[in-house]
């Protein structure tokens, strides 16, 4: 049987937590407390252990408790029958990631051991926000299951930076086409790989999200997710050679603009509900349903790619969902997915869920009370 469980979480100098150890025995764990007590921080630390990034900020330094030199988070996982210890140390100089006490020099060697799906109020931005939000979503989720994707993406971004700098610096009559060809070829190699990988991911996501969306919307709405590849605007052939010649045809444009106009940095995805772009024309309710369907479909996607259900983090979203959506969410989770929930109060949350859960009362970065522990 393939199972993944988070058994223990340790925080040291992480945001407002000085020192904390929690053990988890149940599938469903609810963190309850008033605002600004540190509920979301617990989910953030779990997310960080999986992705090595925060879902709240891109500045790791913000996570270090004020006045501390470093922050340390660790967890113990059970995967099938083996214990895995993950650890991240964040300091102003950078971060160190360890699996079973062994430091991993590359983040791509670390990510993928522990998969999570987070549901947070920010999810709406994937649907409503600008394309950068959607690209970040794609990159994080493919990255969770494919270290090679992270490698290609990092290489692409580095080359793009060099190429843009070159385009900016170059004086018109002294263009070194030899060098431009080389960085362009490198860009085309990684760019075409990433495009194919994004295309495949969105196809799979579309399949899962489609079914879930129909169910949540009571079979009146139909969701289609399409990939909007920047290369695909100009060619149907996504091969390194075709992309390279596409770039070459646009050298003049790039040189005039002093910037690389073409590439995966301009990609986007579209969400169509009954044929209408929900990002621009959908109602608030349709946008919420879409965001939920996308996130739910990730659970199935990760399960299919890795054979393990991811751990699900619900940050302040449960009480905002109506009955149908809550039921759908709970069905997807049922007893197979370990889930961590934050909420300010238990009213509006499904009774069955509460019955099956361990409830932790969080107050001023401390756990005051633990309920329902008797049969854990």
């Amino acid at each position, binding site marked *: 049987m393939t199972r993944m469980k988070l058994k223990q979480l340790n925080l040291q100098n992480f945001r407002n937590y000085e020192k904390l150890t929690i053990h988890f025995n149940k599938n469903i764990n609810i963190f309850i407390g008033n605002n600004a007590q540190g509920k979301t921080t617990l989910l953030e630390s779990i997310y960080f252990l999986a992705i090595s990034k925060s879902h709240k900020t891109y500045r790791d330094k913000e996570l270090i408790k004020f006045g501390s030199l470093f922050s340390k988070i660790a967890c113990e996982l059970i995967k099938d029958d083996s214990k895995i210890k993950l650890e991240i140390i964040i300091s102003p100089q950078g971060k160190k990631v360890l699996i079973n006490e062994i430091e991993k020099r590359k983040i791509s060697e670390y990510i993928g051991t522990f998969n999570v799906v987070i549901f947070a109020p920010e999810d709406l931005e994937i649907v409503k926000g600008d394309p950068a939000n959607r690209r970040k979503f794609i990159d994080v989720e493919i990255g969770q299951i494919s270290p090679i994707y992270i490698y290609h993406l990092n290489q692409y971004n580095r080359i793009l930076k060099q190429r843009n700098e070159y385009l900016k610096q170059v004086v018109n009559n002294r263009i*070194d086409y030899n060098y431009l060809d080389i960085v362009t*070829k*490198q860009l085309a190699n990684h760019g075409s790989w990433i495009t194919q990988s994004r295309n495949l991911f969105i196809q799979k996501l579309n399949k899962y999200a489609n079914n879930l969306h129909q169910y949540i919307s009571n079979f009146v709405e139909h969701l289609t997710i399409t990939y909007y590849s920047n290369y695909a605007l100009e060619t149907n052939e996504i091969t390194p050679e075709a992309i390279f010649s596409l770039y070459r045809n646009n050298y003049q444009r790039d040189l005039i603009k002093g910037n690389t106009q073409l590439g995966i940095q301009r990609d986007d995805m579209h969400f169509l509900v009954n044929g209408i772009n929900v990002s621009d024309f959908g109602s608030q309710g349709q946008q919420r349903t879409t965001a939920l369907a996308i996130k739910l479909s990730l659970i199935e996607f990760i399960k299919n790619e890795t054979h393990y259900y991811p751990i699900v983090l619900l940050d302040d979203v449960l009480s905002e969902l109506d009955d149908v959506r809550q039921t759908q969410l709970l069905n997807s989770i049922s007893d197979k997915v370990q889930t961590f929930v934050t909420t300010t109060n238990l009213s509006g949350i499904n009774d069955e869920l509460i019955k099956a859960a361990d409830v932790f009362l969080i107050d001023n970065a401390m756990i005051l009370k633990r309920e329902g522990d008797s049969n854990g």
Partner: protein
Amino acid sequence: MHYPEAISKLIESMSKLPGVGPKTAERLAFYIANKMKEEDVINFAKALISAKRDLMECTICGNITDKNPCPICQDKTRDRTIIAVVEENKDLIAMEKMKEYRGKYHVLNGVISPINGIGPQDINIPSLIERLKDDEIKEVILATNTTIEGESTAMYIAKLLEKTDIRVTRIARGLPVGGGLEYADEVTLLRAIEGRREIK
């Protein structure tokens, strides 16, 4: 607080070294002033001056040397037909430790990197091309690092030599010797598969 002038000058000098921040510079400066024997300090100072005055870049290969041309370029027993192109002096030293390579070198002293304002003309590429006009040279081994910039630089040089008869090779990438597959990360494995060789 104010340092004595000698100390602040020393700190300023130390800070110019790579990897030395203000704290380390301060510690080193006070160590030199308080703890080091006068004799050692004098030797240190002499070594510093000699490193600058007596050393130069070899006009042929770019290697740091006290004789121009450098001992490797002068060595008649080495194979003149092969040149290994490396980024830095320390890469040449690493190659020499192997004790197997008997060809010559060309030290680029950097890589092409527009972000750092370094173009092809700013490293020892022109002198390499000049050197390769010599008919004796049959092969160029591109031994730059496997970073993005090392890769671009290697490809750049290869392109320049496209129309010559010189054989151009790139050092292999992949699994470390004695390393098991299970310990290699995915990217290294990918490289190893891409660079696979036929043995039959």
